[in-house]
């Protein structure tokens, strides 16, 4: 498929937006620019403020302070214009259980002023594309994965210019997740601007042009996945889980004496992540030095892998995304 050539321009401009619920600062001064045709991920753990930010940008919530514009329309005053431009796939599965998949899609299409006949055709195409068989069956009889895919279709049946996806693949099996990812890539290739809220670093890494990492309602880093991994971590990581937690401290101290080690992080009580630059040569050097350490019991697992966005988050916050 040939990709649509997209002229870059800012379609979403967020200016120091805040949303406080009493003492809880769900979104705390976020400023971002999202370009047309971009797949922009907001990556963060549960409770970081992703969904609140999505609800602000889709005009469901009103900001405590600050503002954002979608194609020049303020989320405070331009709701009626904005909702014609966007599609929203909420984190929760929000479908009518007693309607069929087709009826659910047609209903949403009609809310977007699409005539019944055209809505029916679009429903058929989309349901087939996302592998939802039995479109005449009540949605309550669907598996969790099928319901989630239906949830997604309902967000895009009207072909929005801007699509907000809040954890669109949560709870999907790997095969279904792959179908949804391919579908999202397809939409991006057609020029749709996609704002993806996710806590899945593999999803953010493999799909995004740009990633903003959010924690405690603040954006703590942003850039392309490659930029983030280069800036906030090393190329490679050795992840060791020890049988005994005392061994972790011994090896950790040894790391201070190895020049190729950039930094290390302790996860829980028995897991050590060692970040280093350079490829196999440095890995062998580190490995040799570590196995020479005396009085170490067996290790449970040892992985050598490339740096991920999970490591970026760990380096920035000292916590893992899934913690």
């Amino acid at each position, binding site marked *: 498929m040939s990709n649509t050539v997209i002229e870059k321009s800012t379609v979403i401009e967020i200016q120091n937006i805040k949303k406080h619920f009493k003492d809880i600062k769900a979104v705390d001064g976020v400023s971002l620019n999202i370009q047309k045709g971009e797949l922009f991920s907001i990556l963060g753990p549960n409770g970081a403020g992703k969904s609140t930010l999505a609800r602000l940008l889709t005009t469901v919530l009103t900001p405590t302070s600050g503002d954002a514009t979608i194609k020049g329309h303020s989320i405070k005053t331009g709701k009626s214009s904005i909702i014609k431009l966007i599609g929203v796939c909420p984190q929760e599965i929000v479908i009518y259980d007693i309607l069929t998949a087709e009826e659910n899609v047609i209903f949403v299409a009609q*809310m977007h002023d699409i005539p019944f006949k055209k809505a029916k055709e679009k429903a058929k195409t989309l349901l087939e594309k996302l592998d939802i068989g039995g479109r005449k069956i009540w949605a309550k009889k669907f598996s969790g994965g099928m319901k989630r895919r239906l949830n997604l279709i309902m967000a895009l049946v009207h072909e929005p210019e801007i699509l907000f996806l809040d954890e669109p693949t949560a709870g999907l099996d790997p095969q279904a997740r792959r179908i949804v990812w391919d579908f999202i890539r397809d939409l991006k290739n057609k020029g749709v601007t996609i704002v993806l809220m996710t806590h899945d670093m593999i999803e953010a890494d493999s799909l995004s042009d740009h990633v903003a990492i959010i924690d405690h309602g603040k954006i703590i880093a942003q850039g392309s996945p490659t930029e983030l991994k280069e800036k906030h971590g090393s190329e490679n990581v050795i992840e060791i889980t020890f049988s005994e937690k005392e061994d972790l401290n011994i090896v950790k101290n040894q790391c201070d004496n190895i020049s190729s080690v950039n930094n290390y992080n302790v996860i829980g009580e028995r897991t050590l992540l060692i970040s280093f630059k350079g490829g196999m040569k440095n890995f062998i050097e580190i490995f040799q030095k570590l196995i020479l350490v005396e009085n170490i019991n067996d290790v449970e697992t040892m992985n050598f892998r490339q740096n991920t966005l999970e490591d970026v988050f760990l380096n920035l916050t000292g916590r893992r995304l899934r913690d």
Partner: protein
Amino acid sequence: MDILDKKMIVIAIKNLKDSFRRWEYYLFSLGFPIMFTFLFYFILGSQGISNGLSSFDYGFPGMIIYATSVGTVSAAIGFASDKSSGMLERLDTMPTGRKNVFLGSLISESITLTLQIIIMFVLGYVILGVYFNNLLGLLIGFLVSLLFGISAVGMGIIIASVSKTPQIANGFSLMYYLPILFISGSLMPFESPIVYFTPPYWAKQVYMQITVMGHGLEEQLYSSSLIGYTAEAIPIPIWGGVLIIFGFTLIFIILGIIIFQKKTKF
């Protein structure tokens, strides 16, 4: 205001599909009026009063008004369920219009209400032989109870708008529905001017006077006065009572749209 927006019809059809496909709907929404009518008949059917009419004949209009008031509770619960499931929030991100959501729900609930009234009318007037003056009066009685029922549904949706969960909506609607029925005197006489401030009083009084009391519809509707809480005539003709019910219904719908638009912000 664009009253006949197609989207409100789409919403109403969706709601009706959602109802008609649930067995609970048949048991509770359609089974309830059957149970209620027979219950009333067994309690009041054998108690004679005067002119050959039983307590059941006199009490039937009040029973219809009582039963249609249940629309407040069912509308409140149904609407609050949509709210708590996230569907209202989802609809809020589409160019649906909250007015259409409100009016669509009002239409679908009113259709259920119509079915309930038809069931009670058929049982009461056709099967159990409840007394009525003439068919045209009965039709007016039907429309009066439907109009009153719509106001009850409107109130139910207003209650749901300010309730966070279906359980809270259920509680609030019962707190409205039960006292209002007693203080309106629609179920049993209540000698207080408070009755004039309640929609069920006017609905029951108009409906009863047109279908049970007096002779000749035209005379009844235009010349007869409504009977007040002291059992004396008040200077309001029966058609004036119809206007009052219409006024209450209109107020509840307008209030409903306003409150729904304000109170369903997330």
